[in-house]
C-alpha cells in the first residue's frame, strides 16, 4: 500500500513541476508578445510608461496595441485548447476538436450573422458565438447518439457539419458583400483587429468557464469511463454531457468571436499535454490553458515579426509549426502509451 501512496505523491509532484513549467512558458510568451514587434519595447520604456500613466509613445503602444493583442492570444489559445480537451473527453474521441467537428464553424456562422446585422463586438457577439458553437456541438452529439455512431463516424459527422456551416457563412458573405468578417484572415484566425470591446466580454466568459470547469474535473474523468460505468457510479451522464458541452462551447465561441476560426490549437495542445501529464483532468485542463495560451501567443509574435514589416495571420504560423510538431509527438509516442 505504501508503494501506491508514494507513486501517487510522485505523480502529484510531476504535475506540480509541469504547472511550474507551463506558468513560466505562459509568462515568457506574454512577455515576448508585449515587447516584440515592429517597435521593440524595452523594460526601461515600459517602466517609464507605467510611471507616466501610459502617456509616452511606448505606453500608448503597450496599452492600445500590444496589451489587448497579447491578452487575446493568451485567452483565446487557452480557451480553445481547454475546449478541445473537454470535447475529446465527452465524445471519447481524440480526433475531436472545436475546429474539426464544426464548433468553430458554428461560432463563425453566428459571428457572420451578427456582423450582417451590424453587431461588431460586446457581450451580444460573444453570446451569439457561444450559441452557434453550442448548437453545432449539440447537433454532432445528438446525431452520433441517435445513430449509434462509432468514434470515426462522429468525426465524419462533424466534418460534414463543418462544411455545411461554412457554406452557409460563404453564402451570406456572397449575398451581403458588406459582411467583411469572413475575410481570409478570419478564416485562418488572426489578432490584428482585436479591440477591448471584443476582448473583455470574451475574457470574462472564458475565465468564468474555466473556474467552473476546475470544480468539475472528477466528473469529467468519470465520464471517460463510458456511459454505463459512469451511471453505475451515480452520475447523471446526460446532464453531465450537456454541462461539459456548454462549457466547451462557451470557451470556443468566445475565442472565435475574438480571433476567428483558429484551428489546430484545440487538437494538438491537448494531445501534447496528455503525453507528459497523463489524462487526468485535474492536470490536463490547467496545463492546456497555460500551454494553449502560451503557444498561440508565441505563434502570434512570430506572425508579427518573422516577415516584418509584413504580418501573416497567426493561423498560418500555427499550421506551419503545429503540423510538424503534431507528427513529431505522434511518432515519438508510437508504441508507447499516453498515460503514466
Amino acid at each position, binding site marked *: 500500500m505504501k508503494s*501506491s501512496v508514494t507513486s501517487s505523491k510522485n505523480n502529484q509532484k510531476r504535475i506540480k513541476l509541469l504547472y511550474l513549467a507551463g506558468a513560466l512558458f505562459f509568462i515568457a510568451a506574454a512577455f515576448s508578445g508585449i515587447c516584440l514587434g515592429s517597435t521593440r519595447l524595452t523594460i526601461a520604456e515600459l517602466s517609464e510608461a507605467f510611471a507616466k500613466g501610459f502617456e509616452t509613445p511606448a505606453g500608448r503602444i503597450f496599452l492600445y496595441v500590444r496589451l489587448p493583442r497579447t491578452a487575446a492570444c493568451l485567452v483565446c489559445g487557452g480557451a480553445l485548447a481547454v475546449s478541445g480537451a473537454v470535447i475529446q473527453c465527452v465524445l471519447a474521441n481524440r480526433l475531436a476538436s472545436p475546429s474539426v467537428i464544426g464548433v468553430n464553424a458554428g461560432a463563425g456562422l453566428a459571428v457572420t450573422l451578427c456582423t450582417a446585422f451590424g453587431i461588431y463586438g460586446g457581450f451580444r457577439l460573444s453570446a451569439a458565438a457561444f450559441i452557434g458553437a453550442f448548437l453545432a456541438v449539440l447537433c454532432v452529439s445528438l446525431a452520433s447518439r441517435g445513430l449509434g455512431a462509432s468514434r470515426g463516424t462522429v468525426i465524419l459527422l462533424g466534418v460534414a457539419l463543418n462544411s455545411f456551416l461554412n457554406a452557409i457563412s460563404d453564402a451570406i458573405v456572397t449575398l451581403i458583400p458588406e459582411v467583411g468578417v469572413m475575410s481570409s484572415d478570419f478564416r485562418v484566425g488572426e489578432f490584428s483587429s482585436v479591440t477591448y470591446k471584443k476582448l473583455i466580454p470574451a475574457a470574462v466568459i472564458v475565465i468564468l468557464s474555466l473556474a467552473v470547469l476546475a470544480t468539475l474535473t472528477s466528473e469529467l474523468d468519470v465520464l471517460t469511463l463510458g456511459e454505463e460505468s459512469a451511471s453505475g457510479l451515480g452520475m447523471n451522464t446526460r446532464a453531465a454531457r450537456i454541462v461539459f458541452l456548454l462549457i466547451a462551447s462557451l470557451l470556443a465561441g468566445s475565442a472565435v468571436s475574438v480571433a476567428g476560426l483558429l484551428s489546430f490549437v484545440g487538437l494538438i495542445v491537448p494531445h501534447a499535454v496528455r503525453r507528459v501529464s497523463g489524462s487526468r483532468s485535474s492536470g490536463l485542463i490547467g496545463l492546456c490553458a497555460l500551454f494553449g495560451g502560451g503557444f498561440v501567443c508565441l505563434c502570434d509574435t512570430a506572425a508579427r515579426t518573422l516577415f516584418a514589416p509584413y504580418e501573416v495571420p497567426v493561423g498560418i504560423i500555427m499550421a506551419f509549426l503545429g503540423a510538424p510538431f503534431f507528427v513529431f509527438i505522434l511518432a515519438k509516442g508510437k508504441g508507447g502509451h499516453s498515460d503514466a
Partner: protein
Amino acid sequence: MLELENISAGYKNKRVLEGVSLNFPKGKLTAVIGANGSGKSTLLKAIVGIIPRESGRILADGSDLSALSRRETARRIAYLPQGRSVPDMTVGQLVLHGRFPHLSYPRRYREADRRIAAEAMERMGMLGYADRPLASLSGGMKQNAYIAMALAQDAEYILLDEPTTYLDISHQLGLMRTLRGLADGGKGVIAVLHDLPLAFSYSDLTAVIDGGRAVMSGSPLEVCRSGIISRVFGAELVYDEARGQFGYAYPPV
C-alpha cells in the same frame, strides 16, 4: 436483501421485462441465466436505474430505490456493465473513482478515499499495478481492476453483467473464485452468466430469465432438476453427485 417486486422495464418502443419478482440475498452469489435477448442485462440496468422502470419497486435492505438519488443508489449497489471501453487512466485512478458516489460537489478525493482504494486494490491483488495504464493489462487483470473499483465503492450489492466474457478458462475460474469470496465475505453478488456449468457450480442461487420474465429461482440443484434448463436453452444440464459439479449432457454426435 435486494427485493424486486413486479418490475417491468424496457427501451423506447420495446418492453423487455414483464413483472419480474426476485430476491437477491446478501452473502450469496446469485447467477442470472437466460438465453440471448431474454432480458438479463436489462434487468441489471433496471435495478441501478440506467433504464427507467415502468412499474414495480425495488427494495434494498428495506429502502425503496425510487426514493433514492443516483448517488445514494450507487452507494448501495455497484454495477459493472459488460461492454466497457478501456479508459486512458491507470489502475489506481480507476479504482479511486469507486469513491465517486461518496463525494459531494466539488468532488475531491480525500486521503481516506485513497486509503480505501488502496485496500480494494490490495484485496484484488492489484496494488502492485496501481501505476499501470489499464490498457496495458490482460483481460483478467482489467476485470480485477474493475472489481477493485466496485469494492472501493463499498456497496452492499455488486451487479456484474457477463464478467467472464472474453476471459480464458483459467481467468474465468479465478474470477468465479473471487466472486465466491466476495459473497462469503457478506456482499450480495449478482452476476449475469452464460456458461451454465460455471454458473451452477459456483453460485448459491440461480435465477432463470426467459422472455423478460423470471421463470424460476432457487438453488442450482433445484433449478437443474426442474427441467427448466432444457425448456429454456434446449440443452441438458446434469449434476455429477460424486464430484459435486454441473456439466452439459452432450447429445451423441
